[in-house]
């Protein structure tokens, strides 16, 4: 039987094949070839698309270039969501590779945050980790770490070093045995058809009576529509890292094993394909 450690590896090394094409609105000197890349699910778009940018800059005039942004079927892709979340949310059940359109003009100020440099991503990533640890351990673990430890987390993600990252991240995943889990589970629920960016609430992994709470319990409380009775047709898919865990999966286990490097459990709820 596979070990839980393998899940961490599978999650970390999850890759999405993507095909980047330049938007037809962009003016080019010659025709731009599409660019193919395997994107790490747990990383951020702007962190891993330097090569894409370089590729397209070669066919463009410098004066036509503003900040690069990406879009999929008309939806601007928020770089501050992990790549896997963007894919699950917008492009699950579509053919691979994932066709992403590249823009260098008309930055959608209302939809996207600017990302001037990697330090912006780092700041965002670290603030997520801190927020998650505040929920899990009142922030005690992350605050006890040194600056270099924080750096190790970030460098691990940036350079795709599983061991380097997890050597530090495991400390963030500890909890007192007698409590049976974290104080609160850091999670975010995303849905495509809502204006709200995501749902995030305080949710404990163990009920006051000492029951282990499950993914089902979480959804029952926060998104009851996602749970359908036996006889009803399935309306929604609950997707984490491209898979649909069973509703009886303990939420604590999910948080420990299927969280993104930012320590949040990102749950995408998408309409079930009607076939």
């Amino acid at each position: 039987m596979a070990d839980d450690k393998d899940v961490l590896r599978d999650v970390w090394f999850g890759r999405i094949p993507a095909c980047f094409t330049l938007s037809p609105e962009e003016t080019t000197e010659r025709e731009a070839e599409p660019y193919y890349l395997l994107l790490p699910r747990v990383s951020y778009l702007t962190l891993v698309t330097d090569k894409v940018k370089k590729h397209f800059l070669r066919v463009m005039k410098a004066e036509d270039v503003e900040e690069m942004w990406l879009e999929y079927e008309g939806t601007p892709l928020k770089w501050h969501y992990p790549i896997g979340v963007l894919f699950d949310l917008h492009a699950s059940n579509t053919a691979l590779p994932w066709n992403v359109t590249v823009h260098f003009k008309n930055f959608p100020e209302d939809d996207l945050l600017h990302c001037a440099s990697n330090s912006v991503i780092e700041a965002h990533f670290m603030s997520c980790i801190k927020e998650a640890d505040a929920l899990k351990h009142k922030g005690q673990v992350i605050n006890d770490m040194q600056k270099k430890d924080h750096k190790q987390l970030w460098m691990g993600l940036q350079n795709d070093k599983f061991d380097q990252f997890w050597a530090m991240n495991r400390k963030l995943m500890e909890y007192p045995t007698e409590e049976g889990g974290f104080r609160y589970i850091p999670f975010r629920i995303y849905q495509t058809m809502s204006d709200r960016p995501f749902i995030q609430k305080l949710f404990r992994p163990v009920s006051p009576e000492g029951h282990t709470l499950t993914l089902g319990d979480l959804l029952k409380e926060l998104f009851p529509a996602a749970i359908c009775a036996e006889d009803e047709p399935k309306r929604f898919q609950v997707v984490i890292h491209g898979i649909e865990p069973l509703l009886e999966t303990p939420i604590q286990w999910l948080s420990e094993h299927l969280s993104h490097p930012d320590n949040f459990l990102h749950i995408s709820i998408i309409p079930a394909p009607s076939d």
Partner: protein
Amino acid sequence: MPSSLLWAVDVYGRVYSLSTSGQQWEHCRDAHLEFKRVAAVQQCCWSIACDHNIYLYVHASEVPIRYQEETYENQRWNPVDGFSDRLLPSDRWQWSDVTGLKHQPLVDFQLPSENWEWEADWYVDENFGGEPTEKGGWTYAIDFPATYTKDKKWNSCVRRRRWIRYRRYKAQDTWVKIPSEQTESLPDPFNDITCGGWEITEEPRGCLALWAVSLQGKVWVRCGINHHNPEGSVWEEVPVPGEVVQISCGPGDLVWAVLWEGHLLVREGIGRDCLKGSSWVTVESPSPGVGVVHVAVGVNVVWAVTKDHKVWFRRGVNSHNPCGSGWIGMVGEMVMINVGLNDQVWAIGFEDRAVYFRQGVTASELSGKAWKVVSVPRDSERSHSSASASSLQSAGCFFGGEVRLQSQASVLSDADPETERAGGEVVPTPEIGDAPKPRIPKVTSDSFISELVSDREGQISRRDVPPAGPSIPEEDHPEKELEDRASPAQVLSPSQSGGVDPQWSNVDLEEAQTHLTSGPGGDAAETSSLSSVATYNLALEEPYGPDEHPKWAWVTGGGCLVECHTQLNWFNTSISTALNSSMQAMSLSITPAQTAAWRKQIFEQLSERSKREMENFMHFEQAIEQSVWVKKGTMQWWRDWKPHKWVDVQFALEQFSGAEGNKDGILFIYYTFNDEKKYLHVFINEVTILVPVLNDSKHTFAIYTAERTKQRWPMRLAAATELEMHDWLALLSVSCCDSRGIQGPPSKQAIWSVTCKGDIFVSEPTKELEASPYPTPCDQMFWRQVGGHLRIIESNSLGVVWGIGYDHTAWVHTGGYGGFFQGLASSTDNIYTQTDVKCVYIYENQRWNPVTGYTNRGLPTDRYMWSDASGLKECTKNNTKPPSPNWTWVSDWTIDYAVPGGTDREGWQYAADFPASYHGNKTLKDFVRRRRWARKCKLTTTGPWQEVPPIPLSDITILPCGPKSTVEQVSLWAISNKGDILCRLGVTSLTPGGSSWLHVGTDQPFKSISIGAVHQVWAIAKDGSAFYRGSVSAQNPAGDCWYHIPSPTGQKLKQVSVGRTSVYTVDENGNLWYRHGVTPSYPQGSSWEHISNNVRKVSVGPLDQVWVIADKVQGSHSLSCGTVCRRLGVLPMEPKGHSWDYGIGGGWDHITVRGNAMEAPRILMPSLTDTQTATRPLQTNNQPEMNGNPVGC
């Protein structure tokens, strides 16, 4: 940790026990009487019943309590009859004891009480000093008394033989009355009882002190209680200066008693030689005018309760100052209090008569933190919910959300009327049937009952206040919730009320309904307490009725082991945790979480996802390029050349992707030598082992490669902090495993070894390891560490792995890996807390001088007056530290009387001079003496091990299996630390822990055992003789009888190992012996052949491969003791092999190759003429033995 029991008596005199792993009070149904008081220790429980007799409940053990009776038959030779029973008038009796002074015919032996039975008839002991006599057990001498030999000589005029017969204590797991044999001296019945004193002396084993108080206030002590005499022999009166009402005796030498006037008495002078003590000292009551009514003592604590129910803690109590120094008032109002193991405290509340546990009692904070109420139901109250729990278990739902108390079950039963009947009606019925006839409790006085009743009336009046709850300060009750959740069950109530109807005829219907609905699950004291006192009596008539909070009268924790990491489930009861713990108990190897469907689903979906999203796109470019990753740090390095010293170095690990995609790395050590910058490097894939070497000064570890193993000189590094060392060790070990492609748990074939520090290492054998004639040299084996701390480890090729700790605890491998410290590659499940205890010894040395006698003033040339065993190192009580920072002291220094050679009454051993052989009695020629002091220290670590309670072991062996064999039941034999031979039943590869022990009777204690591939069982007795067990097979796992095998001449054997066919033994002088002439028809073999010296231990594998731990192995740089060596040239027709191959060491203590059944691929080779490997025997060397550190530092 094994579970242990807390005992309590409720106000009706019913005895209950609560397991530390349990969640409900189990009624001791065997007790036909009501009990007043109970006093528990780990092995038994004493009590006073309402008939004022003393009763004893001895816990059943898989090792029976048996006692060997012996007598000698004496004969003298005369020319007419030869040897006959006609003795000279001056001779001893024809049947006598060993001294010949006491007449002891067989018929005079009587069972001491009706609780004993004979095991078999008398028989002759054929074993004489480890040698079989083979002549009817006769031993010969010139005359009585003289030295006996087993051979008859021309001048042998007398002979004798020993007859033995075993009796067995049969009254286990039942209450038996202790006959009051001295009726005339015991005029009045007993009133209080307490048991303790087991820490005072080891000898005789299981020695206990039982103190009792009679109604007239006299104090008695029961003598002669020990393992072989659980009932004790006689009562002796201890004079007291007043009238005692209650007494308490701790595990050590603390005994306190309460006088009728409210003062306290402390017993002084209790010791090894005088369990009764010598005198009493008076201690005043803590508050003037309010006397003490109850006292409880532990090892270093005294607690008392005064008449106003206040609780007091006595400061400064210890063995040297049994009276302590002062009282501290504590929170809480109690009626009685009890101190158990580890000075843990239990009490019974005054208000609610509930059992309270003192939380937070540790060695450093003996007074604890807060009282916490033990709120678990009694067994019958849980029947309903446990029924629903079990059905859920069988349905395979293990986790929380779905499993709620009985309310859920009732909802289920709505859907299915059949289940409803089962869940709602049938279950309560046996409770009613079970209930004894209505009666008024006899144990407690009427005033006590009325007090109880008034208590509850008090409760009624303030019902809107939350009733008594889990802890005194914040009162809070689970009942309301229970009621809320139970509401769906109301639908059921009509049918239910039918069943219980008559009892409630005089109660208003609405109330009955609410009561019933909340009933089956828990305590609904509130509803029922509305009823009148008359109803209350009615409720009494149904003693298992769910209406009442149990009211307790007495609690005793003397057998209850709670440690700081113990998780007690006593405080809030929820089904899900109960399920978890019960599931854990059910299976060692497969945890429910692992088998859960959700987990399987995630594994499957993830691999499906990876396939879907990546398989066809692997030619895409990776978004992030892989690069070299370097970790740097500063460390100290033990310089390779002389003078050896620690030098500061820069340390760097460079990791990169290896040729085949696996990760690899190089380790660099940058140092300065003569102002020149230099470095040395090690390829990660050449590292064979990383050994942590913790000591009190430095955080060091050693790195070996095959080359460095040959040199016996590892690379030694020291990190600045323990944390830093662990970070590096974790990183390095992950890199080493990555570079060799090793991950996950050890395979079934794995070779396990243990160092002298108790660290556990495992190596994955390759097919070439046992190839002949060119096997992989064993210094190239890669070892990785597994968490835990063990002294002995044994395995077989079905993956059954057991270990024994230094404290003789048995552990079974859970199938996991890692643990030990954070960061080591480790399985997420299957890692548990493991503890071990060992003793540190120091010696007190004295020299005699004519003026002052023995003093601690030695000659200038003498050793330190406080030293280690060698005398070379000064070790005082104060400067001696635990072996490493991971160990902590758990006891004070005590004199060790169990030293080889014996001691006098003060523990001294005498000798003519240092160093010499010491003996236990002073003679005229002795000028020096020494005594050994022992102090226990304890280690708490983590590893993939689960304890196999309750019997402590000293050796184990597991059936070795062939490469492809399938064995349903794996034979596993063990020897208890007392020398009993045991056979484990129910061991399979899925349940490696097995189910129970089967005791195999022997005439003497044993120390080593081994089973071969075809169930040949060999064992070594403590006297050094070898035995073969006949007729052992899969069908008859315990065999039928022992055959005594003569030892090699003049040698006492120490250890045995049996492989497929080969039998090897090691004797006490380090010689390795091979048994010749072992054939299927004559499995005992014919003779011993000497193979090697300097061998400490041997392990023979399922392919008859022979591995040993050898001493004094010479490397190119250094000499090592405790080295893993393998016998070369072992072939089916040449089982003895021809030479040795040297592996990892020194500092190794144990190895088992009994899991490695991987046969090498057959290659045809011309012949084994010029083997590169050494054909030398194990070199002997007269250099002094190094201390046993793994790397000799």
